[in-house]
Protein backbone atom coordinates (compact mmCIF):
# COMPACT_ATOMS: atom_id res chain seq x y z
CA UNK A 1 0.00 0.00 0.00
CA UNK A 2 1.36 3.44 -0.83
CA UNK A 3 0.87 6.55 1.29
CA UNK A 4 -2.27 7.68 -0.51
CA UNK A 5 -4.05 4.35 -0.10
CA UNK A 6 -2.98 4.15 3.54
CA UNK A 7 -4.24 7.66 4.14
CA UNK A 8 -7.62 6.79 2.65
CA UNK A 9 -7.88 3.59 4.68
CA UNK A 10 -7.00 5.27 7.98
CA UNK A 11 -9.24 8.27 7.33
CA UNK A 12 -12.08 5.82 6.77
CA UNK A 13 -11.54 4.34 10.21
CA UNK A 14 -10.73 7.51 12.09
CA UNK A 15 -11.85 10.66 10.23
CA UNK A 16 -10.22 13.09 12.66
CA UNK A 17 -6.70 11.72 12.01
CA UNK A 18 -4.21 14.38 11.04
CA UNK A 19 -1.73 13.39 8.32
CA UNK A 20 1.76 14.81 7.91
CA UNK A 21 4.09 13.79 5.13
CA UNK A 22 6.45 16.72 4.94
CA UNK A 23 9.80 16.36 6.65
CA UNK A 24 9.61 12.59 7.06
CA UNK A 25 10.14 9.63 4.77
CA UNK A 26 7.02 7.91 6.14
CA UNK A 27 3.35 8.75 6.29
CA UNK A 28 2.69 10.19 9.76
CA UNK A 29 -0.78 9.68 11.21
CA UNK A 30 -1.44 11.74 14.33
CA UNK A 31 -4.33 10.83 16.63
CA UNK A 32 -5.43 11.72 20.15
CA UNK A 33 -4.92 9.31 23.09
CA UNK A 34 -8.51 7.91 23.23
CA UNK A 35 -8.37 6.92 19.54
CA UNK A 36 -5.04 5.11 19.71
CA UNK A 37 -5.97 1.63 20.84
CA UNK A 38 -8.79 1.03 18.35
CA UNK A 39 -6.80 2.39 15.42
CA UNK A 40 -3.69 0.38 16.34
CA UNK A 41 -5.74 -2.79 16.53
CA UNK A 42 -7.25 -2.15 13.10
CA UNK A 43 -3.83 -1.42 11.59
CA UNK A 44 -2.56 -4.69 13.00
CA UNK A 45 -5.53 -6.90 12.15
CA UNK A 46 -6.78 -5.60 8.79
CA UNK A 47 -5.64 -7.71 5.83
CA UNK A 48 -4.84 -4.69 3.68
CA UNK A 49 -2.66 -2.85 6.21
CA UNK A 50 -1.42 -5.73 8.41
CA UNK A 51 1.24 -3.83 10.36
CA UNK A 52 2.48 -6.82 12.30
CA UNK A 53 5.93 -5.53 13.25
CA UNK A 54 6.63 -2.59 15.52
CA UNK A 55 10.24 -1.60 14.99
CA UNK A 56 10.40 1.42 17.21
CA UNK A 57 8.41 2.99 20.01
CA UNK A 58 9.50 6.22 21.57
CA UNK A 59 8.42 9.62 22.79
CA UNK A 60 9.42 13.19 21.99
CA UNK A 61 9.01 16.01 24.48
CA UNK A 62 7.94 19.31 22.95
CA UNK A 63 7.43 22.53 24.92
CA UNK A 64 3.62 22.37 24.69
CA UNK A 65 2.88 18.67 24.33
CA UNK A 66 4.30 15.18 24.24
CA UNK A 67 4.31 12.98 21.17
CA UNK A 68 4.35 9.21 21.31
CA UNK A 69 5.91 7.83 18.12
CA UNK A 70 5.26 4.29 16.90
CA UNK A 71 7.12 3.03 13.83
CA UNK A 72 5.18 0.21 12.18
CA UNK A 73 6.09 -2.18 9.39
CA UNK A 74 4.21 -4.90 7.60
CA UNK A 75 6.48 -7.84 6.92
CA UNK A 76 4.01 -9.22 4.34
CA UNK A 77 3.27 -6.06 2.38
CA UNK A 78 6.67 -4.41 3.04
CA UNK A 79 5.14 -1.03 3.81
CA UNK A 80 5.91 1.22 6.74
CA UNK A 81 4.26 4.11 8.52
CA UNK A 82 4.47 6.18 11.68
CA UNK A 83 1.60 6.39 14.11
CA UNK A 84 1.76 9.29 16.52
CA UNK A 85 -0.23 10.24 19.56
CA UNK A 86 -0.32 13.84 20.66
CA UNK A 87 -0.65 14.16 24.43
CA UNK A 88 -1.55 17.70 25.45
CA UNK A 89 -1.24 17.21 29.20
CA UNK A 90 2.52 17.38 29.76
CA UNK A 91 2.18 17.25 33.54
CA UNK A 92 0.31 13.97 33.65
CA UNK A 93 0.62 12.20 30.29
CA UNK A 94 -1.47 9.04 29.99
CA UNK A 95 -2.01 6.77 27.01
CA UNK A 96 -3.27 3.21 26.49
CA UNK A 97 -0.74 0.42 26.36
CA UNK A 98 -0.25 -1.43 23.09
CA UNK A 99 1.54 -4.42 24.60
CA UNK A 100 -1.36 -6.76 23.93
CA UNK A 101 -1.15 -5.92 20.23
CA UNK A 102 2.63 -5.98 19.86
CA UNK A 103 4.43 -7.75 22.69
CA UNK A 104 7.60 -5.75 22.16
CA UNK A 105 5.72 -2.63 23.30
CA UNK A 106 5.68 -3.83 26.92
CA UNK A 107 9.38 -3.14 27.50
CA UNK A 108 9.66 -0.16 25.19
CA UNK A 109 6.77 1.43 27.08
CA UNK A 110 8.56 0.79 30.35
CA UNK A 111 11.55 2.65 28.92
CA UNK A 112 9.34 5.59 27.91
CA UNK A 113 7.75 5.59 31.37
CA UNK A 114 11.22 5.55 32.91
CA UNK A 115 12.71 8.38 30.87
CA UNK A 116 9.64 10.53 30.02
CA UNK A 117 7.10 9.74 32.71
CA UNK A 118 4.33 8.78 30.32
CA UNK A 119 1.89 6.42 32.06
CA UNK A 120 0.32 3.54 30.19
CA UNK A 121 -3.19 2.35 31.04
CA UNK A 122 -3.54 -1.41 31.59
CA UNK A 123 0.21 -2.01 31.38
CA UNK A 124 0.96 -5.27 33.25
CA UNK A 125 4.21 -4.18 34.88
CA UNK A 126 4.85 -0.44 34.74
CA UNK A 127 8.14 0.09 36.60
CA UNK A 128 11.39 1.88 35.89
CA UNK A 129 13.62 -0.22 33.68
CA UNK A 130 16.96 1.51 33.13
CA UNK A 131 17.22 3.82 36.13
CA UNK A 132 17.05 3.10 39.85
CA UNK A 133 13.59 2.66 41.34
CA UNK A 134 14.06 5.73 43.54
CA UNK A 135 15.27 8.05 40.77
CA UNK A 136 13.63 11.47 40.87
CA UNK A 137 12.29 12.94 37.66
CA UNK A 138 12.35 11.91 34.03
CA UNK A 139 15.72 12.60 32.38
CA UNK A 140 14.76 12.79 28.72
CA UNK A 141 12.24 15.56 29.37
CA UNK A 142 13.52 18.91 28.19
CA UNK A 143 12.88 20.60 31.54
CA UNK A 144 14.82 17.99 33.53
CA UNK A 145 17.50 19.54 35.69
CA UNK A 146 20.32 17.48 37.11
CA UNK A 147 23.34 19.58 38.09
CA UNK A 148 25.43 16.54 39.06
CA UNK A 149 25.04 14.17 36.16
CA UNK A 150 24.39 16.47 33.23
CA UNK A 151 26.85 19.21 32.42
CA UNK A 152 25.27 21.96 30.38
CA UNK A 153 27.41 23.96 28.00
Amino acid at each position, binding site marked *: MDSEALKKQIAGWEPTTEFVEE*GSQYLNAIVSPPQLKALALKLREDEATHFNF*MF*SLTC*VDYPEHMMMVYHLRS*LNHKHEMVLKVKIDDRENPVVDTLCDIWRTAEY*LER*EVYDLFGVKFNNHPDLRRI*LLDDDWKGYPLRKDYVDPINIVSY
Partner: protein
Amino acid sequence: MEAVKEKSDLKTQEYFVNMGPQHPSTHGVLRLVLGLDGEIITKVEPHIGYIHRSIEKMCEHDNYRQIVHLTDRMDYLSSHMNNEAVCLAVENALEIEVSDRVKVIRTIFSELTRLASHQLWWGVMGMDLGALTAFLYGFRDREMINDIFEETCGARLTMNYNVPGGVMFDLHPNFQQRVKDFVIHFKSKLPEYDLLLSDNVIFRERTVGVGTLSKEDVISYGITGPTARGSGVSCDIRKLHPYSAYDRVEFKEILMEDGDSFSRYKARILEMWESLHIIEQLIDNIPEGDIQAPTKALIKLPKGEFFQSVETARGELGVYIVSEGGKSPYRMKFRSPGFSNLFVLEHMAKGSKIADLVAMMSTIDLVVPDIDR
Protein backbone atom coordinates in the same frame (compact mmCIF):
# COMPACT_ATOMS: atom_id res chain seq x y z
CA MET B 1 8.14 -33.41 37.34
CA GLU B 2 4.50 -33.92 38.26
CA ALA B 3 5.00 -37.69 38.42
CA VAL B 4 7.91 -37.36 40.82
CA LYS B 5 5.90 -35.08 43.07
CA GLU B 6 3.00 -37.51 43.32
CA LYS B 7 5.16 -40.48 44.05
CA SER B 8 7.17 -38.99 46.85
CA ASP B 9 4.63 -36.62 48.45
CA LEU B 10 7.38 -34.02 48.45
CA LYS B 11 6.25 -30.45 48.21
CA THR B 12 8.31 -28.10 46.08
CA GLN B 13 8.43 -24.41 46.64
CA GLU B 14 9.23 -21.72 44.10
CA TYR B 15 12.49 -19.95 44.87
CA PHE B 16 14.51 -17.19 43.27
CA VAL B 17 18.10 -17.11 42.09
CA ASN B 18 20.07 -14.15 40.80
CA MET B 19 21.96 -14.89 37.63
CA GLY B 20 24.43 -12.06 37.28
CA PRO B 21 25.14 -9.15 37.28
CA GLN B 22 28.61 -10.67 37.08
CA HIS B 23 27.76 -14.06 35.67
CA PRO B 24 30.18 -14.88 32.81
CA SER B 25 27.50 -16.14 30.43
CA THR B 26 25.53 -12.90 30.61
CA HIS B 27 28.39 -11.27 28.65
CA GLY B 28 28.34 -8.02 30.46
CA VAL B 29 26.49 -6.55 33.36
CA LEU B 30 23.06 -8.11 33.06
CA ARG B 31 21.11 -9.51 35.99
CA LEU B 32 18.42 -12.10 35.54
CA VAL B 33 16.13 -12.94 38.42
CA LEU B 34 15.13 -16.54 37.89
CA GLY B 35 12.08 -18.10 39.47
CA LEU B 36 12.71 -21.81 39.86
CA ASP B 37 10.72 -24.86 40.77
CA GLY B 38 13.40 -27.49 41.26
CA GLU B 39 15.46 -26.88 38.17
CA ILE B 40 12.51 -25.85 36.01
CA ILE B 41 12.36 -22.16 35.16
CA THR B 42 9.07 -20.49 36.05
CA LYS B 43 10.08 -16.88 35.60
CA VAL B 44 12.87 -14.86 34.04
CA GLU B 45 13.04 -11.20 34.89
CA PRO B 46 15.85 -9.25 33.23
CA HIS B 47 17.14 -6.28 35.22
CA ILE B 48 19.04 -3.94 32.96
CA GLY B 49 20.53 -0.48 33.21
CA TYR B 50 23.79 -1.24 35.02
CA ILE B 51 25.73 0.46 32.23
CA HIS B 52 23.13 2.94 31.12
CA ARG B 53 25.08 5.99 29.98
CA SER B 54 22.15 7.95 28.63
CA ILE B 55 23.60 8.17 25.15
CA GLU B 56 20.33 9.57 23.84
CA LYS B 57 20.49 12.51 26.24
CA MET B 58 24.17 13.10 25.45
CA CYS B 59 23.28 13.28 21.75
CA GLU B 60 21.02 16.24 22.47
CA HIS B 61 24.08 18.24 23.50
CA ASP B 62 26.56 17.01 20.87
CA ASN B 63 26.85 17.88 17.21
CA TYR B 64 26.43 15.28 14.51
CA ARG B 65 30.12 14.57 14.08
CA GLN B 66 30.48 13.90 17.79
CA ILE B 67 27.45 11.64 17.89
CA VAL B 68 29.08 9.17 15.50
CA HIS B 69 31.71 8.14 18.01
CA LEU B 70 29.18 7.67 20.82
CA THR B 71 27.54 4.92 18.80
CA ASP B 72 30.75 2.88 18.89
CA ARG B 73 30.05 2.30 22.56
CA MET B 74 26.60 0.80 22.11
CA ASP B 75 27.08 -2.51 20.35
CA TYR B 76 30.86 -2.49 20.37
CA LEU B 77 31.08 -5.63 18.25
CA SER B 78 29.15 -3.93 15.45
CA SER B 79 30.80 -0.54 15.88
CA HIS B 80 31.28 0.06 12.18
CA MET B 81 27.61 -0.55 11.40
CA ASN B 82 26.49 1.70 14.24
CA ASN B 83 28.63 4.54 12.87
CA GLU B 84 27.28 3.86 9.44
CA ALA B 85 23.67 4.17 10.63
CA VAL B 86 24.23 7.70 11.94
CA CYS B 87 26.27 8.73 8.92
CA LEU B 88 23.65 7.43 6.49
CA ALA B 89 20.91 9.24 8.40
CA VAL B 90 22.83 12.52 8.23
CA GLU B 91 23.74 12.02 4.57
CA ASN B 92 20.13 11.26 3.63
CA ALA B 93 18.90 14.30 5.54
CA LEU B 94 21.40 16.58 3.78
CA GLU B 95 21.00 14.73 0.46
CA ILE B 96 24.72 14.13 0.17
CA GLU B 97 25.66 11.55 -2.42
CA VAL B 98 28.74 9.63 -1.30
CA SER B 99 31.12 8.19 -3.88
CA ASP B 100 30.99 4.58 -5.01
CA ARG B 101 34.37 4.05 -3.40
CA VAL B 102 32.97 4.97 0.00
CA LYS B 103 29.94 2.72 -0.49
CA VAL B 104 32.12 -0.27 -1.32
CA ILE B 105 34.59 0.41 1.49
CA ARG B 106 31.72 0.68 3.99
CA THR B 107 30.18 -2.56 2.77
CA ILE B 108 33.46 -4.49 3.00
CA PHE B 109 34.10 -3.10 6.47
CA SER B 110 30.56 -3.93 7.58
CA GLU B 111 30.90 -7.51 6.46
CA LEU B 112 34.32 -7.87 8.10
CA THR B 113 32.81 -6.49 11.30
CA ARG B 114 29.94 -8.95 11.03
CA LEU B 115 32.42 -11.79 10.59
CA ALA B 116 34.46 -10.64 13.59
CA SER B 117 31.31 -10.38 15.69
CA HIS B 118 30.07 -13.82 14.69
CA GLN B 119 33.50 -15.33 15.34
CA LEU B 120 33.49 -13.92 18.85
CA TRP B 121 29.92 -15.10 19.37
CA TRP B 122 30.84 -18.57 18.15
CA GLY B 123 33.85 -18.82 20.43
CA VAL B 124 31.95 -17.54 23.44
CA MET B 125 29.01 -19.81 22.76
CA GLY B 126 31.33 -22.79 22.79
CA MET B 127 32.81 -21.59 26.05
CA ASP B 128 29.37 -21.09 27.60
CA LEU B 129 28.52 -24.70 26.81
CA GLY B 130 31.83 -25.99 28.13
CA ALA B 131 34.06 -26.14 25.05
CA LEU B 132 36.99 -23.84 25.70
CA THR B 133 38.77 -24.75 22.45
CA ALA B 134 36.11 -22.96 20.43
CA PHE B 135 36.99 -19.71 22.17
CA LEU B 136 40.63 -20.01 21.11
CA TYR B 137 39.71 -20.88 17.52
CA GLY B 138 37.28 -17.97 17.26
CA PHE B 139 39.75 -15.46 18.62
CA ARG B 140 42.57 -16.73 16.40
CA ASP B 141 40.60 -15.86 13.27
CA ARG B 142 39.10 -12.68 14.67
CA GLU B 143 42.61 -11.36 15.34
CA MET B 144 43.31 -11.26 11.58
CA ILE B 145 40.29 -9.01 10.99
CA ASN B 146 41.24 -6.71 13.83
CA ASP B 147 44.74 -6.41 12.36
CA ILE B 148 43.27 -5.39 9.00
CA PHE B 149 41.16 -2.72 10.72
CA GLU B 150 44.11 -1.48 12.71
CA GLU B 151 46.23 -1.02 9.61
CA THR B 152 43.67 1.17 7.87
CA CYS B 153 42.08 3.18 10.65
CA GLY B 154 44.28 2.72 13.69
CA ALA B 155 41.70 1.11 15.96
CA ARG B 156 40.73 -2.49 16.41
CA LEU B 157 37.32 -2.44 18.07
CA THR B 158 35.67 0.97 18.35
CA MET B 159 36.87 2.16 15.00
CA ASN B 160 35.04 5.45 14.43
CA TYR B 161 36.04 5.12 10.77
CA ASN B 162 32.86 6.57 9.25
CA VAL B 163 32.29 10.29 9.09
CA PRO B 164 29.25 12.02 7.60
CA GLY B 165 30.02 12.15 3.88
CA GLY B 166 32.47 9.29 3.71
CA VAL B 167 35.22 7.56 5.62
CA MET B 168 38.02 9.10 7.62
CA PHE B 169 41.10 7.71 5.86
CA ASP B 170 41.82 6.03 2.57
CA LEU B 171 42.51 2.30 2.56
CA HIS B 172 45.97 1.12 3.50
CA PRO B 173 47.92 -0.15 0.44
CA ASN B 174 48.02 -3.64 1.97
CA PHE B 175 44.27 -3.74 2.56
CA GLN B 176 43.17 -5.65 -0.54
CA GLN B 177 45.89 -8.26 -0.26
CA ARG B 178 45.32 -8.85 3.43
CA VAL B 179 41.56 -9.18 3.02
CA LYS B 180 42.09 -11.68 0.21
CA ASP B 181 44.53 -13.62 2.37
CA PHE B 182 42.00 -13.60 5.18
CA VAL B 183 39.19 -14.86 2.94
CA ILE B 184 41.35 -17.76 1.76
CA HIS B 185 42.41 -18.50 5.34
CA PHE B 186 38.93 -18.33 6.80
CA LYS B 187 37.36 -20.41 4.04
CA SER B 188 39.61 -23.26 5.10
CA LYS B 189 38.91 -22.65 8.81
CA LEU B 190 35.13 -22.27 8.73
CA PRO B 191 34.54 -25.98 8.06
CA GLU B 192 36.55 -26.58 11.26
CA TYR B 193 33.89 -24.65 13.15
CA ASP B 194 31.35 -27.17 11.94
CA LEU B 195 33.58 -30.11 12.82
CA LEU B 196 34.29 -28.81 16.28
CA LEU B 197 30.85 -27.67 17.42
CA SER B 198 28.05 -28.04 14.88
CA ASP B 199 28.51 -31.77 14.46
CA ASN B 200 29.44 -32.43 18.07
CA VAL B 201 26.93 -34.73 19.70
CA ILE B 202 27.06 -33.02 23.11
CA PHE B 203 26.59 -29.64 21.51
CA ARG B 204 23.61 -30.87 19.52
CA GLU B 205 22.02 -32.42 22.59
CA ARG B 206 22.21 -29.06 24.29
CA THR B 207 20.85 -26.94 21.44
CA VAL B 208 18.49 -28.95 19.21
CA GLY B 209 14.91 -28.39 20.33
CA VAL B 210 15.98 -25.98 23.09
CA GLY B 211 14.33 -22.56 23.34
CA THR B 212 12.00 -22.86 20.36
CA LEU B 213 10.45 -19.63 19.09
CA SER B 214 7.52 -19.56 16.70
CA LYS B 215 7.27 -17.13 13.79
CA GLU B 216 4.37 -15.31 15.43
CA ASP B 217 6.34 -14.76 18.64
CA VAL B 218 9.35 -13.47 16.76
CA ILE B 219 7.25 -10.90 14.91
CA SER B 220 5.25 -9.84 17.96
CA TYR B 221 8.33 -9.44 20.16
CA GLY B 222 10.02 -7.33 17.47
CA ILE B 223 13.01 -9.63 17.15
CA THR B 224 15.44 -9.04 14.30
CA GLY B 225 18.71 -10.35 12.97
CA PRO B 226 19.90 -13.96 12.94
CA THR B 227 17.75 -14.60 16.02
CA ALA B 228 14.61 -13.95 13.94
CA ARG B 229 15.94 -15.64 10.84
CA GLY B 230 16.51 -18.79 12.86
CA SER B 231 12.71 -18.97 13.05
CA GLY B 232 12.29 -18.27 9.36
CA VAL B 233 11.22 -14.62 9.59
CA SER B 234 12.65 -12.56 6.75
CA CYS B 235 13.82 -9.27 8.23
CA ASP B 236 17.21 -8.48 6.71
CA ILE B 237 17.51 -4.71 6.24
CA ARG B 238 20.22 -5.35 3.64
CA LYS B 239 17.49 -6.89 1.47
CA LEU B 240 14.51 -4.81 2.62
CA HIS B 241 16.08 -1.35 2.26
CA PRO B 242 19.48 -1.87 0.62
CA TYR B 243 22.01 0.76 1.64
CA SER B 244 25.68 1.37 0.71
CA ALA B 245 26.68 -1.27 -1.88
CA TYR B 246 24.29 -4.05 -0.85
CA ASP B 247 22.13 -3.48 -3.94
CA ARG B 248 24.98 -4.48 -6.24
CA VAL B 249 26.11 -7.69 -4.53
CA GLU B 250 24.47 -11.05 -4.65
CA PHE B 251 23.85 -12.93 -1.40
CA LYS B 252 21.24 -15.11 0.23
CA GLU B 253 19.19 -14.22 3.27
CA ILE B 254 19.63 -17.23 5.54
CA LEU B 255 16.27 -18.52 6.77
CA MET B 256 16.00 -21.59 9.00
CA GLU B 257 12.84 -23.49 9.79
CA ASP B 258 12.91 -24.88 13.32
CA GLY B 259 13.36 -21.79 15.47
CA ASP B 260 15.35 -23.60 18.16
CA SER B 261 18.79 -22.71 19.50
CA PHE B 262 20.51 -24.86 16.91
CA SER B 263 18.71 -23.06 14.05
CA ARG B 264 19.82 -19.72 15.38
CA TYR B 265 23.35 -21.08 15.69
CA LYS B 266 23.27 -22.45 12.16
CA ALA B 267 21.86 -19.20 10.77
CA ARG B 268 24.93 -17.34 12.03
CA ILE B 269 27.36 -19.94 10.70
CA LEU B 270 25.76 -19.79 7.25
CA GLU B 271 25.70 -16.01 7.44
CA MET B 272 29.47 -16.05 7.77
CA TRP B 273 29.69 -17.84 4.41
CA GLU B 274 27.46 -15.17 2.88
CA SER B 275 29.63 -12.40 4.33
CA LEU B 276 32.71 -14.00 2.77
CA HIS B 277 30.81 -14.19 -0.51
CA ILE B 278 29.96 -10.48 -0.37
CA ILE B 279 33.56 -9.52 0.39
CA GLU B 280 34.83 -11.66 -2.51
CA GLN B 281 32.53 -9.87 -4.93
CA LEU B 282 33.71 -6.43 -3.88
CA ILE B 283 37.37 -6.70 -2.96
CA ASP B 284 38.70 -6.79 -6.53
CA ASN B 285 36.46 -3.98 -7.76
CA ILE B 286 36.91 -1.13 -5.32
CA PRO B 287 36.19 1.88 -7.54
CA GLU B 288 38.41 4.93 -7.55
CA GLY B 289 36.95 8.13 -6.13
CA ASP B 290 36.86 10.55 -3.25
CA ILE B 291 36.77 9.15 0.25
CA GLN B 292 34.80 12.11 1.58
CA ALA B 293 32.09 14.20 0.02
CA PRO B 294 32.46 17.89 0.89
CA THR B 295 30.54 18.75 4.07
CA LYS B 296 30.52 21.75 6.35
CA ALA B 297 32.64 21.53 9.48
CA LEU B 298 29.57 22.09 11.64
CA ILE B 299 26.72 20.05 10.23
CA LYS B 300 23.18 21.37 10.61
CA LEU B 301 20.29 19.17 9.58
CA PRO B 302 17.09 20.65 8.14
CA LYS B 303 13.94 20.62 10.26
CA GLY B 304 12.26 17.24 10.10
CA GLU B 305 12.37 13.62 11.19
CA PHE B 306 14.75 11.04 9.81
CA PHE B 307 14.90 7.31 10.35
CA GLN B 308 17.67 5.07 9.14
CA SER B 309 18.00 1.34 9.70
CA VAL B 310 21.04 -0.84 9.15
CA GLU B 311 21.59 -4.53 9.69
CA THR B 312 24.15 -5.03 12.43
CA ALA B 313 25.46 -8.42 13.51
CA ARG B 314 22.59 -8.65 16.03
CA GLY B 315 19.72 -7.27 13.98
CA GLU B 316 18.12 -4.03 13.02
CA LEU B 317 19.65 -0.88 14.42
CA GLY B 318 17.43 2.12 13.82
CA VAL B 319 18.47 5.73 14.24
CA TYR B 320 15.62 8.18 14.71
CA ILE B 321 16.54 11.86 14.55
CA VAL B 322 14.13 14.68 15.28
CA SER B 323 15.78 17.86 14.08
CA GLU B 324 14.67 21.42 14.72
CA GLY B 325 17.29 22.72 12.32
CA GLY B 326 20.15 23.09 14.79
CA LYS B 327 23.60 21.60 15.12
CA SER B 328 22.34 18.99 17.61
CA PRO B 329 19.29 16.80 17.29
CA TYR B 330 16.21 17.81 19.26
CA ARG B 331 15.67 14.16 20.09
CA MET B 332 17.66 11.11 19.11
CA LYS B 333 16.51 7.55 19.59
CA PHE B 334 18.41 4.37 18.90
CA ARG B 335 16.31 1.33 18.18
CA SER B 336 18.78 -1.24 19.43
CA PRO B 337 18.38 -4.84 18.36
CA GLY B 338 19.54 -6.25 21.70
CA PHE B 339 16.78 -4.56 23.69
CA SER B 340 13.96 -6.27 21.82
CA ASN B 341 15.81 -9.56 21.54
CA LEU B 342 16.52 -9.79 25.28
CA PHE B 343 12.94 -9.61 26.46
CA VAL B 344 11.82 -12.69 24.60
CA LEU B 345 13.94 -14.66 27.05
CA GLU B 346 11.17 -15.17 29.60
CA HIS B 347 8.80 -16.48 26.96
CA MET B 348 11.54 -18.70 25.56
CA ALA B 349 12.83 -20.14 28.80
CA LYS B 350 9.64 -20.75 30.78
CA GLY B 351 9.26 -24.43 31.54
CA SER B 352 12.76 -25.47 30.48
CA LYS B 353 15.74 -26.45 32.62
CA ILE B 354 18.05 -23.86 34.13
CA ALA B 355 21.08 -25.32 32.30
CA ASP B 356 19.39 -24.69 28.95
CA LEU B 357 19.06 -21.01 29.70
CA VAL B 358 22.76 -20.55 28.98
CA ALA B 359 22.36 -22.04 25.49
CA MET B 360 19.35 -19.82 24.83
CA MET B 361 21.15 -16.69 25.92
CA SER B 362 24.16 -17.53 23.78
CA THR B 363 22.06 -17.93 20.66
CA ILE B 364 20.31 -14.59 21.22
CA ASP B 365 23.82 -13.10 21.17
CA LEU B 366 23.42 -10.27 23.65
CA VAL B 367 25.74 -7.31 23.97
CA VAL B 368 24.70 -5.49 27.12
CA PRO B 369 25.88 -1.92 26.29
CA ASP B 370 23.61 -2.16 23.25
CA ILE B 371 20.64 -2.89 25.51
CA ASP B 372 21.40 -0.26 28.14
CA ARG B 373 22.70 2.47 25.81
